[in-house]
């Protein structure tokens, strides 16, 4: 081997070394194992696993499902009382963005870099790179036009709680177990104060899962429910269901769920390179299209596509009621307590 090639090698090396560590790697090079916990619906998980396999053929990506509450509990157990325990995952995608704040504070997250987040993303992100939004969930109202007419159902969140004709005919998710429901009550209590919870209680709102609530719309047991847009879009598309979304006039509640990478020394496989690659892919157009096929809205600026027959994402953002995520994190117990007292206590 002559000097020329050696120099070439060394120079390439030098170049490589001076570049940003963790520069975009070639996809075949991403290998090893990565475990992602997510609260995305199982059908989404299937799609995403397939897409990741195609994009990173040598990477063994495992997506595991758990409801936000379930995952939080599981991880709490793994963290242990001293918050030093090792987790059994490498990345986390749960519905409640406030959880990212919590984990960051505990020192459980690893910063990863993406290109130009400010220009890229429609929503807030952590400037140090500890978490990024990856999908937007959208809390709205829904009704069944075959059972009730539009006049009989509420068109605002306010009416949802205060309209007495809805007593016993409304339903929503459980803030203790559902991250999006938690976000919703944070936003609503922000806007209307804790009296909103009292009104919900007096209207005897039923607390249950989305699928149960949808069935109640179908049978007519409920007149209106608070539910994620994606659930409605899904049955509209797949089952030709008549159930229709009501975009409340006092605002929709956008929940930009995040993607986080677990700190190297606390993660299951310490495969930061892969995590970075996956994060970047998720925020790429391709990854976002995958999100869209799961009936969720994209977080990437400039993407005009939106899921099924929803509405344009930017237009949706304009209707956003806005959630104070810090409050969601720090006052979580208080808000939950108030909700419990007003709504779930008989």
């Amino acid at each position: 081997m002559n000097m020329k090639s050696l120099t070439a090698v060394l120079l390439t090396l030098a170049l490589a070394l001076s570049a940003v560590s963790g520069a975009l790697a070639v996809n075949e090079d991403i290998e090893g194992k990565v475990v992602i916990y997510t609260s995305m619906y199982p059908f989404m998980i299937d799609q995403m696993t397939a897409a990741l396999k195609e994009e990173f053929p040598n990477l063994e990506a495992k997506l595991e499902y758990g409801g936000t509450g379930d995952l939080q509990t599981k991880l709490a157990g793994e963290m242990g009382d001293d918050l030093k325990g090792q987790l059994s995952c490498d990345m986390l995608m749960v519905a409640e963005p406030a959880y990212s704040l919590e984990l960051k504070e505990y020192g459980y997250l690893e910063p990863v870099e993406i290109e130009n987040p400010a220009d890229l993303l429609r929503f807030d992100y952590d400037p140090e790179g500890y978490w990024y939004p990856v999908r937007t969930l959208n809390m709205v109202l829904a009704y069944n036009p075959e059972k009730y007419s539009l006049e009989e159902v509420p068109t605002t969140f306010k009416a949802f709680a205060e309209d007495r004709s809805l007593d016993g005919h409304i339903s929503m998710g459980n803030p203790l177990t559902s991250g999006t429901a938690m976000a919703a009550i944070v936003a609503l209590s922000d806007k209307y104060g804790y009296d909103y919870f009292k009104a919900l209680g007096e209207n005897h709102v039923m607390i249950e899962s989305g699928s149960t609530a949808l069935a109640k719309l179908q049978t007519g047991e409920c007149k209106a429910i608070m539910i994620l847009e994606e659930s409605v879009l899904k049955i509209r598309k797949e089952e030709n269901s008549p159930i229709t979304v009501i975009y409340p006039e006092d605002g929709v509640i956008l929940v930009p769920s995040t993607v986080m990478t677990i700190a190297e020394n606390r993660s299951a496989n310490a495969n930061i390179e892969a995590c970075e690659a996956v994060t970047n892919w998720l925020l790429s157009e391709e990854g976002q299209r995958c999100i869209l096929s799961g009936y969720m809205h994209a977080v990437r600026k400039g993407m005009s596509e939106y899921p099924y027959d929803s509405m344009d994402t930017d237009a949706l953002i304009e209707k956003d009621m806005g959630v104070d995520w810090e409050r969601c994190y720090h006052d979580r117990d208080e808000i939950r307590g108030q909700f419990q007292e007003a709504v779930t206590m008989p």
Partner: protein
Amino acid sequence: MTRKANRQPARTVLLTVLAGLLLFSSLMIGGGIHGISTFDRSGYTTEDVWSWTLRLGGEAETLYREWTAPELATLPEAEQAGAARAARRLLAEAWHVNETDLAEYTDAQVWKLLSMTYSFSRKKISSAGRKSIAAIEDPAEAGKQMLSVLAAGSGIAENPALSGLSVLEGADAAMTAQVFLAARNENATVLSKETSLAFTRAAGDEEKEIEAMQAWAAGTVSPLNAWVTEHARTVILLGALLMLDVILLFILLRQEKSWRVDLKWMLILLIVDFLVVFQLLPLVYLLIRAFFPSGMFSLETFRRLYTYAMNWQALTNTLTASACTMVLGTAIAYPLAYLVGRTNLYGRKFFRSLFVLTYMVPPYVGAMAWLRLLNKNVGTINLLLRGLFGLRITEGPLNIYSLGGLIWVLTTFYFPYAFITISRAMEKMDPSLEEASRIAGASPFQTVLKITLPIMTPSLIAGALLVFVCAASCYGIPSIIGAPGNVHTVTTRIIEYYGLGVKGINDATGLAVFLILIALVVLYLSDFVMAKKQYVTVSGKSTRPAMVDLRKWRVPLTVMMGLFAVIAVAVPFATILTTSFKVDVGKSLLEEGNFTLNQWNALFRDESLGCLKNSLLFGAAAATIGAVISCVMSYLMQRTRIRGRKLPDFLITLGSGTPSVVIALGLIMTMRGQFGVNIYNTAGILIVAYLIKYLMMGMRTVSSAMSQIHVSLEESSQISGAGWLRTMVRITGPLIMPSIAAGWFLIFIPCFYELSMTTLLYTSETKTIGYQLYQYWTFTSQPQACAMAFGILLFVVVLNFVLNRLTKGEFTI
């Protein structure tokens, strides 16, 4: 005289052995404690730090010996020395020390330490770099060249072709060294990734990493102390168990007055160990955590919990619902059992199978159905009633989301427990007792009141208490029926607290303790108090009990029975079946386009089949182990006179009475290695949980069967020369085989569809049918969940049928 003399040597030998084992176990415990305290003082993160250090060091040794040293040998001496100096410099840099601090290490050691340090260095070789290396035709040669460059040090600048290297310093120089060291390894890593990763984790921070490597280099880490530190907790646990076993064995043998160690004692002790570790330990841990939250005895947790209105309500709800279910369930079960077992009601066999069927279905399935039928807005039955009575209301008349609704569903699900218990007791009762009453002039009804009922009362109470405990620990039904109506129970509250994370777990424990105490008290009453009063009335002759002729009541009672069966069983099941074929739950099945097989098809997807496989496997494992345990423990209960033989049985019963969520909670908190056993996130923890919860079913069945086999059958086998095991396998086993099979089945079924514990303990590899059902119900759709539920039912029914055929009709629940 001779017998006593013969006994002496055996006894002495045995006692010596036991004493030796006792000593050994104390050593184990001592060693383990020493290991832990050493570790605690050391500041390392995990206990297996020394093992990984040794392993890493070993790999570094191999690397050095097989590659680094030979490569270095090919260089001219000057360059060798230069390389060694460079290596020393790099190591000092990496360790943030002066080169003089490394004086005590030889060159070889420095190279090894360097390899170890670089194996987990944060600066990885980028893929671009790796590509370049891959492009080189002879990487070893290139590496050598680079080493020369490294060694030459200041000579670099003179060579213009190598001028690019002058920018290499510090980390980059380390990079180069790493490249050199790694060039040998295909993965372009220095040492194996797993070992390095595990080492960093074990050490915790950079300082500790260096400390560990230094300790290794100094030779102060021995394989023995590495092993003990890593497994200290397990060693302590095993030592404690060994000690316990030795003591128990001593007591056992002394009570039996026989100094032969038989296989059966070993098995019994093994099972006791199992119960102690997996049942007693988690329970005690929970209790301690609740009563001593910060190390001191305090009822603070309880005070705080129970003054909270919602929890207090949950408590009263649980007690009320359980009590009512108990009364209602027994009140229904008793006449049903009588009618089906003792009279000439039409279709007795059919009714019996039907009622037992409800037992075979997951509880929330029933809840799902009743939700559809009795919700106050558009419940099917409500609509029917409104139409029938011309009521012009939009709500009700019946509302399932209430305490009453909860009680109703709990009753329809749990009365089979009482039904089965009472039926069995009735079958065992000497029928001539009732016949004597008839002859004396009492009508069948009077006979039931004055004779049958009083005699069966203890069994009745036992059955009722069983219903109480089961209803109190139920989670599925209250979560579906109670929650929407704000009827909370202790179990639902526990889950809610549990979901609150770290802070919630203590509260969850506090509530769990309440349920544990209920279970303890109730089961104590049932087992120790009631059991004394049971009238032993098994008749010697197997006379057929007289069928009471209902005469003019025959048809009306059959109709009433039929009505009840329809309401309690057929209607819910039918609802589930029809819903499973629907697209839109709100529309009728007959409407256009509303019928679909999609949901049923989905059951055969890979995912569901995978869950099915898991459920079958775990259920079968739990059932089989359970059957073996039942046999051995039944032997202990029925055939020995050992004092305290009832305790394991009590523990097993307690397991059933403990709410599923509490069992899971306890296991999660104790089985992650802090007590030496780590089965968290494995199939093992699921199987263990199932076993603890459902062992009692098998135990009761086998025990009762064994009590009916006369001991002389086994004695004659012993006289013929067969040992304990052979007698059990050849004589007792075949005789009670139908009951063993029934017991197996009784354990298998609830394990098969179990939900509450699985949701807390599963991993992606250990998903089960029950979990899948919960997923469908919560996140997919109602029709999908119904399809799954009905599928489970079909499966269980078919299994029952098959087993019945296989055992030629002898096997029935």
